[in-house]
């Protein structure tokens, strides 16, 4: 056994990170990425400034516990909509992944988009890949300090602006801007602006591809959505191998593949992998290698597409099936979910009601002929204007001869509820003793909106409860 064999092997997973300097490239997919960057970041930075009907169009007002999304106001009671929207979003992500691979990662994920933006700035300040590597290796001289300093300053400004915009989604951004201008920010707004700014700086400027490799849960399970018909970025080894460059290429020109081993695909990769090793979980499908390789292939006078968006089936010369059971299942599930979501959203009531029985007593005898049950009704006005209500009760198996009288305290009579107000309303329901034939019976309470400015009256919510009587 030689000395070399005894050398311990470093485990790759714990290798300390080498900074990746992705080389700039251009082409169809990079133009698409730039477009997506402009659309998404533009949307993010401008959205809070857009007003709709006199209010910030998109405002998640956490202090007031209201979400404004254009004309619609969501209360905490509407959390179900938010969770459904999230489930639908997750399903859409799975659907897109099954169809087209990790397009989310390459083109739309905030991590990728902000990293792209930060890399663009780096490139603008420090120059191209070779210059950046040289600068990285050079000792700290005036030039390095100047360039690094300028980069860090621009990054910091951008990160703080991002933090400010982010907080602007949760507190009205115009007020926030005033506070910033007059230097009177509260401690918590300051904390969140800096926290989110720092997170942006750290994620996009420093961590970059490490977030995708080590932190992202989606990267770990996305392969579960893949099948042989999913679009992937792939190198064609049949055409490319055996790869050769330089002297070897000239000598064996008849036996070599199309890959000229120029390393362009490796140099442009933002996660630092070699796509020629096959599909890897590190690949975020940004397609930079496709653009870089196509450019080289055209230069050397060969057909582009040595690296391309393709499917496993296509690579093997088989047919790609777009409509397959998995896809159809996703489409059906998604249409049902979106349909139900839309329907419930449109038929949303402007009141929320909860009926609780008074726990202190089952029933009370008002006089020899009358029985009384006590309830507490929680009414919330989810509408946009003040409301008053009318409460009635029916029950006892739908017997129309039974009369249930709802008694409301005088101080609650015709009580008007402002928009967003929550009221705990104690009520009594009286019934004739002769009608109460069983110990426990079901009743229904109808809460009807009787007056509401600017929207139709007559909205009604029905709640079930129990009515207790004496033992027979």
């Amino acid at each position: 056994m030689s000395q070399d064999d005894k050398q311990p092997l470093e485990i790759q997973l714990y290798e300390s990170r080498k900074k990746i300097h992705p080389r700039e490239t251009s082409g169809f997919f990079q133009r698409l990425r730039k477009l997506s960057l402009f659309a998404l970041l533009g949307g993010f930075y401008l959205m809070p400034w857009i007003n709709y009907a006199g209010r910030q169009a998109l405002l998640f007002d956490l202090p007031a516990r209201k979400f404004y999304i254009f004309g619609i106001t969501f209360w905490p009671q509407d959390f179900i909509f938010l969770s459904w929207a999230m489930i639908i979003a997750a399903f859409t992500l799975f659907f897109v992944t099954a169809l087209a691979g990790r397009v989310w990662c390459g083109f739309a994920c905030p991590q990728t988009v902000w990293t792209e933006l930060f890399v663009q700035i780096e490139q603008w300040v420090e120059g191209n890949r070779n210059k950046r590597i040289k600068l990285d290796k050079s000792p700290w001289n005036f030039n390095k300090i100047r360039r690094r300093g300028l980069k860090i300053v621009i990054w910091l400004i951008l990160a703080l602006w991002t933090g400010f915009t982010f907080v602007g989604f949760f507190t009205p951004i115009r007020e926030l801007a005033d506070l910033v201008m007059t230097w009177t920010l509260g401690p918590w707004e300051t904390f969140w602006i800096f926290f989110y700014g720092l997170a942006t700086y750290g994620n996009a400027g420093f961590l970059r591809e490490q977030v995708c490799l080590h932190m992202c849960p989606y990267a770990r399970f996305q392969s579960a959505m893949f099948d042989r018909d999913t679009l992937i970025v792939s190198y064609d080894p049949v055409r490319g191998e055996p790869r050769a460059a330089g002297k070897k290429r000239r000598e064996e020109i008849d036996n070599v593949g199309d890959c000229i081993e120029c390393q362009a695909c490796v140099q442009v990769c933002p996660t630092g992998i070699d796509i020629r090793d096959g599909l890897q979980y590190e690949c975020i499908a940004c397609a930079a290698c496709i653009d870089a390789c196509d450019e080289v292939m055209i230069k050397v006078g060969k057909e582009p597409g040595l690296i391309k968006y393709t499917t496993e089936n296509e690579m093997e010369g088989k047919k790609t099936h777009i409509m397959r059971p998995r896809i159809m299942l996703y489409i059906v599930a998604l249409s049902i979910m979106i349909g139900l979501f839309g329907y419930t959203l449109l038929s949303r009531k402007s009141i929320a009601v909860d009926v609780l029985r008074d726990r202190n007593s089952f029933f009370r005898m008002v006089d020899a002929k009358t029985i009384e049950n006590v309830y507490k009704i929680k009414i919330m006005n989810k509408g946009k204007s003040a409301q008053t209500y009318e409460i009635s009760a029916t029950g006892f198996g739908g017997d129309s001869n039974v009369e249930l009288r709802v008694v409301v305290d005088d101080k609650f009579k015709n009580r008007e509820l402002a928009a967003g107000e929550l009221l705990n309303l104690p009520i009594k329901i009286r019934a004739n003793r002769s009608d109460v034939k069983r110990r426990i019976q079901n009743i229904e309470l109808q809460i009807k909106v009787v007056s509401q400015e600017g929207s139709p009256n007559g909205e009604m919510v029905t709640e079930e409860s129990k009515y207790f009587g004496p033992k027979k």
Partner: protein
Amino acid sequence: MSECNNQEIDFNKRQLKRIFYRRLAVVIWVSFFVAGLETMAFFVMFDPELLGQLSIWSVMLGATEGYTFGFLFFWVFNLTTAVMVGLVMVLPRTKLAKRTGPKPE
């Protein structure tokens, strides 16, 4: 021979350090992520301003402070759980951890 041993010890030390830092990073990140979800689910149901009045310190808690404290609270406790899991998961260097595979030649 002794030189090789030293190298090996150095390497093992480096490796253990990396494993430790990686574990630490995973613990911090995962507890942060879950704390975000918990904060959302929790504060949908409870208004932080009312919670402040209900607590034993009867502090007047504004909404923003409430959410922030809630988030940090969840994060700290998730972190505790994760650190403890990490700590207990690692086998101590006793007989339990001894490898019983084939001996190197």
